[in-house]
């Protein structure tokens, strides 16, 4: 999509077209548009098709969003419906609330 390497390199792991996966992707897309102003790249990996990729990023929960860039690597699991937490997870907003 974007020719120069994007600042934000995100990878979303899913396992089939489940409602959770679809919700997660939609939530991610919306969030990136709002906060990352086009300087991002999203790669969706369906583990049902490429199960061997799960080991590399130590994927256990589905869906998992992995921030490959900028370093350090961060992981956010869930359908990303809690925008606040996603922003904290991506280091876009300092963590203020209670984790649990």
């Amino acid at each position, binding site marked *: 999509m974007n020719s120069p390497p994007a600042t934000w390199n995100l990878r979303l792991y899913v396992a089939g077209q489940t409602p*959770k996966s679809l919700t997660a992707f939609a939530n991610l897309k919306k969030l990136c548009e709002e906060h990352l102003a086009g300087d991002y790249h999203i790669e969706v990996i369906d583990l049902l098709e490429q*199960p*061997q990729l799960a080991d590399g990023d130590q*994927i256990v*929960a*589905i869906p998992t969003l992995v921030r490959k860039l900028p370093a350090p690597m961060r992981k956010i*699991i869930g359908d990303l419906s809690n925008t606040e937490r996603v922003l904290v997870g991506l280091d876009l907003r300092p963590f203020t609330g209670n984790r649990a």
Partner: protein
Amino acid sequence: MSTDRSLPKCPTGIKGLDEITGGGLPAGRPTLICGSAGCGKTLLAMEFIVRGATQYGEPGVFMSFEETSEELAQNVRSLGFDLQALVDRKQLALSYVRIERSEIEEAGDYDLDGLFVRLEYAIDTIGAKRVVLDTIESLFAGFSNASILRAELRRLFRWLKDKGVTAVITGERGDATLTRQGLEEYVSDCVIVLDHRAKEQLATRRLRVIKYRGSSHGTNEYPFLIDESGIDVLPVTSVGLNYQASNERISSGIPELDDMLAGGFYRGSSILLSGTAGTGKTTSAATFLAAACARGERSIYFSFEESQSQTARNLRSVGIDLQPILDSKLLLFSATRPTQHGLEMHLATMFKQIRDFKPANVVVDPVTSLLVQGNENEVHSMLMALLDYMKGEGITCFFTALNASTERIEQSDVGISSLIDSWLLVRDIEANGERNRGLFILKSRGMAHSNQIREFLLTADGVRLRPTYLGQHGVLTGSARLVQEAKDAAETLARRQEIERRERELERERMLAEARVAAIRSEYEAKAEEIRRAVLELESADQEIALGQDQMAASRKVGAGHDHEARNGILRGKP
């Protein structure tokens, strides 16, 4: 699944465990192995996988949540498991799942499909029949939403069953529950608890099958060892009272004792020799073993008091040389301090040595040393387990027991006496300023045996039993017996001398009488000879006279008839 036959089982290949479980873990079902840290869960799980791959041709997946594949490979290398080789041969897949809570932010609903995908991928890649999850409870540390986790675990175990793999799941022991997170709720087919607890500073590993749905199993706690060949569970308490009794007699090594027992001990029986300190128990036991080895039988000597060289040295002083039989590999000498292990561990190591060495005879010297480890009940049940095993194998076992001299021996050993077939007692007999030993047979099942107390002597030629002197003042032993025996001997000698004297006298009389008879006879014969000679002379004289008269008659030719008649008349008148 609904057949009459019992559940299909998946052999673990772990020594002893398959015996306890009647063939292995439930095939195609998950089994939970729980226990506290460091009790051998991971090792047991790993051995299950490795043995499956190497012995039963069942590839396995080991999914670790705690250790990386390299760490695992390193940990089990000392046991001779080469994980990398198995991985290369596609018999094993190692999968390390790392979950770092600090790296993960939870934002909304999720499931554990990632784990499922990885597991399925690993299983399908090598065609695995066995799966280990070690330990899946780590997930609870990685994720905060416990309700999702629980639902997912339930789904996971269901999925494993549907997949038809035999799974082993390990879990940390919780305070009130078997596992910290209550995994036993999900895994209900087979639950094995491992334990590594220390009692009086001595740790023992134990294994217990607390649940095995659809199968009978040993319910006791079984001690197990982790040694250079892996896990070794000792199913010692699983044997019953169904051994064969032998009629064969074997020598105790002491001829006099064999006589007392009317031929020796039964093969495969249990013998207890109890006595106070310094009553020759070790020597008797060694005599028994030396005799066994002389017959070419394999034997084990378990010593809890002395080292091999000390025992050997001491036995040399009574004429028993252990060295040749040690060299001949017929005798295995196993010396340990009772405090070296816990009671079960002793039992386990003894069991293992007996199983591996396959002896015909076993000596435990002294069995009472084990009382340091536990109370009488524990020692009792341990011995019962050991004895049952040995009887099942037809092994003759010779125990010695050390008694405190203050108590009555018969009572102090009552705990184990019921297990013993032949019970010998060596007792001190203190009298006349001396301490001597008396041996007697308290009981000996199934054989006629002497009721005598014999004096027990340790000589340079080994153990000797002497009949004690039963005199007017009771049993005499030691020098009192010697004095009495000397006195008896002197009296006997005196009597024998008197008899000899009398016999000589009689002989003399006889000879005298015979001489006299001979003299009379010779006198008679002399006289008879004299008379015969006189008679002969007279007769020849007669003939000469007759001849003379005939000549005269011939010359005179007259009056011959008259003279002739006269001469005949004279002759007729003689008697």
